[in-house]
């Protein structure tokens, strides 16, 4: 992988510099978010008060209250995996907005095996995880294949497949697979043998699965030939082709892995938390993933802390709502702002008059619609 060429720089500089932009991005987002709250409140003073209680609510609720930190880690778990599901295609030059659909299809396929297969404990749980991965991988394969073979743009297709996936699962949950014993719209619970081990509070083994997967993905991307060919495709598909790499295969590969990881995220939610699949199950993990991935500059290891930041926003968001009487949508606004400032680094550099050497060359996505 690429090493930092500038040996003249001190170690601290090298460690801190990549953090400057993300941290300033978060700070700027919080400031603008505060302005939104103040301007939409009854009067500025009340608004200011809401900002204080709301923001403190996020921190307190997500980190310091009883079960705060475990709940935050629980929310971090799917964000790590869906974040990777966005990052891997990014590295190959594709934009996967479809993690949401892949998440829910994976959860569905996994849940089915969790309900209807009879297997011994550990093995059953693993099979269910594999099934979840496979379901998501299939849902990722479709746009990957369409892009590779027909040049259909993945941005449109992944968004469309989100709608289709959600509607499919809604149909399944309301219709053929509805639990007849309850009035709520949900499937039967998965068998106990398929569940994830609980560690503390709601925190389950899935968190460690996610951490390990992130490490594997880092190794895959930067230390293996498979990752080399994938990244080369993302950086320069023409040069990749010249070098004997087949970009079409890389596109499909990256989307299959991505879909699988999002599917794994979905099924782990069932195995570790809900045991059943409900309508509206995905709840935006696939969309938050985009900001997570970009905040981490698409680096699998950096995705872990980035997902943690978004986990804090997710869990803390409830406290912002309860304590300050603000809408949960404030959190969405904050997320959108963070996404804006981490991707538009030029804005952050402009706002803070920074002169950094930017080695932040992600793969260019907007190559037009031609494929």
């Amino acid at each position: 992988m690429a090493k930092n060429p500038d040996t003249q720089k001190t170690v601290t500089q090298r460690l801190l510099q990549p953090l400057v932009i993300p941290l300033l991005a978060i700070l700027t987002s919080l400031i603008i978010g505060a302005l939104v709250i103040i301007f939409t409140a009854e009067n500025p003073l009340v608004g200011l008060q809401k900002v204080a209680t709301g923001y403190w609510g996020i921190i307190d609720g997500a980190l310091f209250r009883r079960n705060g930190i475990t709940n935050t880690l629980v929310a971090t778990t799917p964000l790590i995996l869906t974040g990777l599901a966005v990052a891997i295609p990014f590295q190959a030059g594709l934009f996967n907005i479809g993690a949401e659909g892949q998440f829910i299809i994976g959860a569905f396929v996994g849940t089915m095996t969790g309900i209807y297969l009879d297997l011994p404990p550990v093995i059953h749980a693993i099979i269910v995880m594999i099934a979840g991965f496979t379901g998501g991988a299939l849902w990722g394969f479709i746009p990957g294949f369409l892009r590779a073979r027909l040049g259909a743009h993945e941005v449109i297709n992944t968004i469309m497949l989100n709608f289709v996936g959600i509607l499919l699962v809604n149909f399944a949950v309301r219709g053929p697979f509805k639990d007849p014993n309850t009035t709520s719209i949900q499937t039967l619970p998965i068998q106990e043998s398929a569940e994830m081990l609980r560690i503390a509070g709601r925190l389950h083994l899935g968190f460690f699965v996610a951490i390990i997967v992130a490490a594997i993905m880092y190794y895959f991307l930067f230390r293996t030939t498979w990752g080399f060919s994938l990244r080369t495709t993302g950086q320069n598909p023409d040069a990749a082709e010249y070098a004997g790499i087949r970009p079409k295969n890389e596109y499909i590969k990256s989307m299959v892995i991505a879909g699988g990881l999002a599917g794994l995220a979905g099924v782990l939610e069932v195995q570790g938390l809900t045991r059943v699949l409900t309508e509206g199950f995905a709840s935006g993990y696939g969309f938050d993933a985009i900001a997570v991935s970009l905040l981490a500059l698409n680096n699998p290891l950096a995705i872990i802390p980035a997902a943690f930041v978004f986990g804090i926003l997710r869990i803390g968001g409830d406290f912002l709502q309860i304590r300050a009487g603000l809408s949960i949508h404030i959190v969405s606004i904050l997320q959108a702002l963070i996404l804006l400032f981490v991707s538009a680094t030029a804005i952050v550099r402009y706002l803070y008059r920074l002169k950094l050497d930017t080695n932040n060359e992600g793969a260019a996505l907007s190559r037009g619609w031609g494929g």
Partner: protein
Amino acid sequence: MTPVLEARGLTKRFPGVVANDSVNLTLHKGKILALLGENGAGKTTLMNMLYGLYHPTEGEILINGKPVRMDSPNDAIAAGIGMVHQHFMLVPVMTVTENIMLGVEETRGFLSRLPLLGRLDRKKVADEIRALSQKYNLALNPDDTIKDLSVGIQQRAEIIKALYRKADILILDEPTAVLTPQEADELFEIMHNLTAQGVSIIFITHKLKEVLAVADNIAVLRGGKMVGTADPKTSTEESLAALMVGREVLLRVKKDEAHPGDVVLDVADLVVEDDRGQTAVDHLNLQVRAGEIVGIAGIQGNGQRELVEGITGLRAIKNGRVTLGGANITHMLPRQVTELGVAHIPEDREKHGLVKNYPIADNIVLNQYYLPPFANGPVLNQPVIDQKATELVAEYDVRTPSIYTHAGSLSGGNKQKVIVAREFSRPTKLLIANQPTRGVDVGSIEFIHNQIVAQRDAGTAVLVVSAELDEVLGLADRVAVMFDGRIVKILPASEATRERVGLLMAGSDQ
């Protein structure tokens, strides 16, 4: 007599670079001033200042003796300056008329009172174009779409575009780079027609013969400085070359007699299509033997790119057969072709040759990264990769702070050396070099040429494709002239004169 255009002490500084250093320039009415300089000498920067695209750091520009300030091309156009860029500034999907009227549209109808929303008067403009093309003897159909026109005709559209804007000073930036010698002669005739009617021309080039043929005055730029002026009547190619590069250079490639061996590359009846699905390589036959250099001469766009991409597996082959040392490689994937011992210097190094955000080290193994010793199974062996890169950077004299420097930050010559290092450092049966020295400084050109000859002498079959006729003539043992997708003639080096090859390139059979 007041010069029509004068530049006094023009200086342009970019962060860390002085691109132009107090340059003086004088152009007289109805004359052709040749501006000579090698790549990177600062010619383009100078012209961009004259055309209002750059603002000079210091110095002034005078038109007819009056100082003018040019902040945008609009100011230059208003001052009567027209520019024909090296890469044409024409919108391919639009017609000649649309391209020419763009920015100075004529409208009609009652909506014309609204800014920019009147109905375009294409007919009126087309008529004016016809009148201009008659006046200056430049045949051109205003209703044709640009992308359907040959390069020579597109260039006429560019010239008329400037004349339509009432330009009386024309800047032609490397206008002959994409023309056949015959087309170039036609252009020179056009230039003389223009000057006869009072137009003054700045003619930018690095081709010495052309300068001597058409210029009234010569100015030579080197390293951003004006190093001298010359009179074409008293100058020779050698004296101009010395002025241009600052030292005596070899215009000829040094090489001994070739000793060709067995046929390595055999292309039979090859048909390849271009991106639009048109036949680009049309039942082509060609053989290259071990230990010889076959040079392909031809104007760009006659199927050279498709031929190379067809051989290397980058483009689908519609018909015919390609064999390499007896092995059929017709429908092989690029990787299989590479593994059989084909090295390929691609035409466009930025697009195909390098990953600019990768360090040099990774670019050095771009097509071998998965092979031992660079990988153990699927795991990259970075120390070995780095070591290989360190060796090759030294051997091929790549000027870089480190092997971890991103390839994109290197100069053109050093980028090309990285590619050459990668392609020449593995066992090769066939070397395909497409535009091996395009946009490369003189020192690197010499280096790369010597390396190519060394490959030949080591027994490699070499196929050189170049738009620079002199490069082909200098390197090749046999010259294959390509026209309209076919090899129209193969000449031994001894019979390949510029004139003869030039005629063949234009499709004229003798």
